């Protein structure tokens, strides 16, 4: 009996000890902070930790376009060109190309033209792109070969795919050299009917034969689908594209209609990165898409990193590509870069970081707190955390708060190549049109809407009021007094000063609305603001906007709707006043000026000219400016265009947002580059310093656990006493 009890006691003790051990192991994390969200073994490794809030929709280079997608594809795929990491203004340099290609111009008969030939004479431009030999793709099963040298996974059957659930289940991988044909293949893919490439419409206007090619592939695809051929691989090699051709193993040519120097910027985007045909064929095999094994999920590139874990529900992990061709950190940058320590790594081989871990973080609060705990290496600043991170001095100067400085956190700011504006629908009978009445009405409203106040209240000062379409850093932006919009501002010795409300009222009276009333009918002028914005934040902004109109005794009706209906109104041109934004594709003024180019109207053309502005003189100048080199003459023409637009005032010239980003002291070579999407290869981490500071900042506070234990005892003990007293209570005692 005693033995049994002893065994039982020993057993219980053993279980308790085991449980304690497991708990200790689980909770204490090998001496690491308890709140560390990553494996303890990775604490001192050369890993960059970042987050993403939304699953990227596409990782196929023919489809990915959003910033949250190119964040990944930019590190994996290598188009022929890239932006210099440090130099400003942004400068294109070769990536896989041997040099930045120069355009050769041809007339309609195909005869060569001089480099300075007038744009009107240029029927075609040709770009010959030569790529560096010896560049290899990341290891991938599509390149794996058997003993006979045949592609090992080229003709898979349903049986072969038994037990295959992800790309990692293929045991063999291989690589091969990058060739020019891969770039040509990808350009053809832009027209693939299954891919719905977002820039197909735009590129069809330029790349010779692409529009017809799209129709050809559509027909071929329909025939393939009708034939019931399993897998549905459309072999693009069988369908030549006239505007793109392979010259030799390492060279290819792109022929475009007319003159379009902006093509070079597109050549720095993943749309023009190489895709090997055998990879496309590999993914098109029957049973692959049913297993979610697609190029859209498992990208294949030559870049510094390769995606090894794609679980966008939790984590996406990129590791150093063992086949990376090698590249070195830039040797030169802006004059201030050396002092900022941005040239410490000059000439060193890239990339510096071994692994990049992106964790899903949907909410701002946990994301911000994890950054403060040191578990993310860099961070943006949300409105909620702005006051905690940034202090703004009396003169408007921006600096970090003491709490941030104590942690060694550093701040980077940059004006984004974006613009947010309030637009007038130029097709609207009241606010639109080109009469003096309408022009004055729009100018008056533009003066009344105090953008400086908006930026101060709603953006914590993170924006620069726009004087025109072109943001700082882009050719055509004019600094200082010369760049001030004279329609809305007076130039004073202390800088630009917004014109007074009295002046706006005079303009309004000139427009036929003295005191906000129609001079003929005496009725108050009621204007409509169409928006998809809802919620408490939006209400504050809309109330503010209503007050701006009220300064002129104008009544603003907020027509709030859902996003889809709002888009529909914009497409049909039934909105009156609206807010809109544009994020540039490339650092060229054309990419902003085209927002007011008549043939690019939203209504009828489905373009990006949301205001449906159409001024023949502006359009004429745009056609001249769009293909010019960055010369003083181009700058003059841009100034003329800006003046025209300022007078017509199709927009209230909103603001250029300013991006604030923070990073920890162990995160090196951080310089905002808003054009480059492959900048992670330049970043460096000091893991030992990070591990030390993380441990220092995240020591668990244990006294609350002791207090909790005491509290639980304080509840349990009286309850037990009470329970026992009740158990001992007799009916007699109860009755008494």
């Amino acid at each position, binding site marked *: 009996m005693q033995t049994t009890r002893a065994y039982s006691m020993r057993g219980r003790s053993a279980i308790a000890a085991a449980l304690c051990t497991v708990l200790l192991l689980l909770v204490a994390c090998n001496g690491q902070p308890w709140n560390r*969200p990553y494996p303890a073994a990775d604490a001192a490794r050369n890993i960059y930790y970042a987050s993403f809030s939304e699953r990227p929709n596409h990782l196929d280079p023919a489809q990915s376009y959003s910033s949250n997608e190119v964040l990944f594809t930019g590190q994996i795929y290598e188009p022929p060109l890239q932006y210099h990491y440090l130099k400003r203004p942004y400068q294109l340099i070769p990536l896989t190309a041997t040099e930045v290609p120069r355009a050769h111009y041809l007339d309609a008969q195909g005869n060569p033209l001089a480099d300075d030939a007038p744009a009107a004479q240029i029927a075609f431009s040709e770009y010959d792109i030569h790529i560096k030999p010896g560049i290899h793709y990341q290891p991938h099963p599509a390149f794996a070969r058997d003993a006979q040298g045949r592609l090992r996974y080229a003709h898979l059957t349903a049986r072969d795919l038994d037990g295959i659930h992800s790309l990692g289940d293929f045991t063999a991988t291989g690589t091969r050299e990058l060739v020019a044909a891969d770039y040509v293949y990808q350009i053809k893919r832009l027209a693939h009917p299954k891919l719905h490439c977002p820039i197909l419409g735009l590129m069809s206007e330029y790349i010779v034969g692409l529009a017809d090619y799209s129709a050809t592939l559509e027909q071929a695809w329909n025939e393939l689908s009708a034939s019931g051929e399993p897998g549905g691989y459309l072999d693009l090699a069988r369908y030549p594209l006239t505007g793109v051709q392979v010259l030799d193993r390492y060279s290819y040519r792109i022929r475009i209609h007319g003159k379009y120097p902006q093509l070079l910027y597109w050549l720095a985007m993943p749309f023009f990165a190489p895709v090997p045909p055998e990879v496309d064929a590999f993914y098109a095999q029957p049973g692959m898409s049913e297993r979610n094994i697609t190029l859209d999920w498992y990208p294949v590139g030559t870049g510094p990193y390769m995606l090894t874990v794609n679980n966008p529900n939790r984590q996406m992990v990129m590791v150093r590509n063992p086949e990376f061709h090698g590249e070195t950190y830039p040797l030169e940058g802006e004059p201030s870069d050396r002092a900022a320590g941005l040239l410490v790594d000059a000439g060193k081989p890239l990339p510096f970081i071994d692994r990049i871990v992106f964790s899903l973080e949907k909410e701002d609060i946990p994301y911000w707190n994890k950054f403060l705990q040191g578990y993310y290496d860099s961070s943006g600043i949300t409105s909620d955390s702005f006051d905690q991170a940034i202090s703004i001095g009396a003169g408007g100067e921006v600096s970090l708060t003491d709490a941030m400085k104590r942690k060694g956190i550093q701040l980077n700011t940059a004006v984004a190549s974006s613009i947010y504006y309030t637009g007038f629908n130029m097709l609207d009978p009241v606010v639109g049109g080109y009469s003096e009445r309408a022009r004055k009405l729009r100018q008056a409203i533009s003066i009344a809407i105090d953008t400086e106040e908006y930026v101060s209240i709603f953006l914590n000062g993170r924006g620069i009021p726009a004087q025109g379409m072109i943001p700082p850093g882009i050719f055509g932006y004019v600094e200082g007094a010369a760049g001030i919009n004279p329609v809305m501002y007076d130039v004073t010795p202390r800088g630009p000063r917004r014109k007074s409300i009295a002046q706006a009222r005079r303009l309004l009276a000139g427009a036929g609305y003295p005191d906000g009333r129609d001079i003929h009918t005496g009725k108050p002028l009621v204007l409509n603001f169409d928006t998809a914005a809802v919620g408490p934040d939006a209400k504050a902004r809309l109330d503010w906007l209503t007050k701006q109109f009220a300064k002129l005794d104008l009544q603003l009706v907020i027509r709030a709707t859902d996003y*889809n209906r709002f888009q529909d109104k914009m497409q049909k041109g039934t909105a009156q006043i609206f807010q809109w934004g544009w994020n540039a594709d490339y650092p060229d003024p054309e990419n902003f000026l085209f927002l007011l180019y008549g043939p690019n109207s939203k209504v009828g053309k489905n373009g990006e000219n949301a205001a449906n502005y159409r001024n023949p003189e502006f359009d004429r100048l745009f056609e001249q400016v769009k293909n010019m080199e960055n010369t003083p003459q181009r700058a003059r023409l841009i100034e003329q265009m800006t003046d025209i637009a300022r007078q017509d005032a199709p927009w209230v010239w909103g603001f250029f947002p300013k991006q604030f980003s923070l990073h920890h002291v162990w995160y090196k070579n951080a310089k905002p580059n808003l054009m480059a999407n492959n900048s992670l290869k330049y970043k460096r981490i000091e893991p030992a310093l990070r591990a030390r500071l993380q441990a220092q900042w995240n020591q668990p506070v244990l006294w609350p656990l002791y207090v909790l234990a005491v509290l639980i005892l304080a509840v349990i003990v009286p309850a037990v006493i009470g329970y026992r007293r009740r158990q001992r209570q007799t009916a007699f005692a109860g009755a008494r």
Partner: protein
Amino acid sequence: MFAYIVRRIAYAIPILIGVNVLTFYLFFVVNSPDDMARLHLGMKHVTAEAIASWKSDHGYDKPLLVNHKASGIREFTDTIFFEKSVRLFAFDFGFSDDGRDISYDISQRMLPSLAIAIPALLVGLLVNVTFAMLMAFFRGTYVDVSGVILCVILMSISGMFYIIGGQFLLAKLFRLMPISGYASGLGAIKFLILPVLIGVISGIGSGARWYRTFFLEEAGKDFVRTARAKGLSESLVMFRHVLRNALIPIVTGVVVVLPLLFMGSLLTESFFSIPGLGSYTIDAINKQDFAVVRVMVFLGSVLYIIGLILVDITYTIVDPRVRLS
């Protein structure tokens, strides 16, 4: 009982069709196929041709409910509704609008949802029953009154406050566990402690108060008085007679939510970055992915119906007086 279950399953079919029609109608009242195409294609440089091509490729180029251009049965079968919905009844969920296999995604996301929901349910049940029993045992005393007041306070606090407060206090201030995240295998435990704890604490108010009423109701019944008159100790009365009988509504209340545990929690999963089915549904709504939304609503309905059938069956098990017919 078998006939009863078969009959209930047969009743479920028109309900599911109704749910499908309603989901379809509500979704397309807010989103048109053009809007869906625009959202999937991105906001820049989207042409009318690209929209038409996307719609055709994803089967959204047909009429919604009735195809007036078709004749006969095809008037109803050659529509978006029929083509997108009929396969659901064979549990063939197909592909999401961005080309992912929905069944696979659900199978991957079910576990994280259950990893929070099951511990939260079990621990919550234990805590709530214990607390309710304590209040019932000391009914009418300061323990009972304080307990009820505490329950009302806990009930009055919003779920969001528990989450944000819990993250701030335990993960940020005391640094006892990670603020958010998830890992596979045993590594998940440290990420689950906080959401489970918050799930349990936020449920104490309503749960314990509700169960207390069951206990008090049972405690006032004749058979309990008889048990006491027989001289049984109070603990024996409470555990053997009161608890056992009060468990009938408690168990049935739990059984009905069991299947729905698969569906996950929208708020908790979002704040703790748990890759479960709750966040899957929210993502699909935000991305206007009708393929996923309809599957999740359908699945929710099926599980709810299963839950109700299980409740009926459970009644017969826990209460021998009930017979299904």
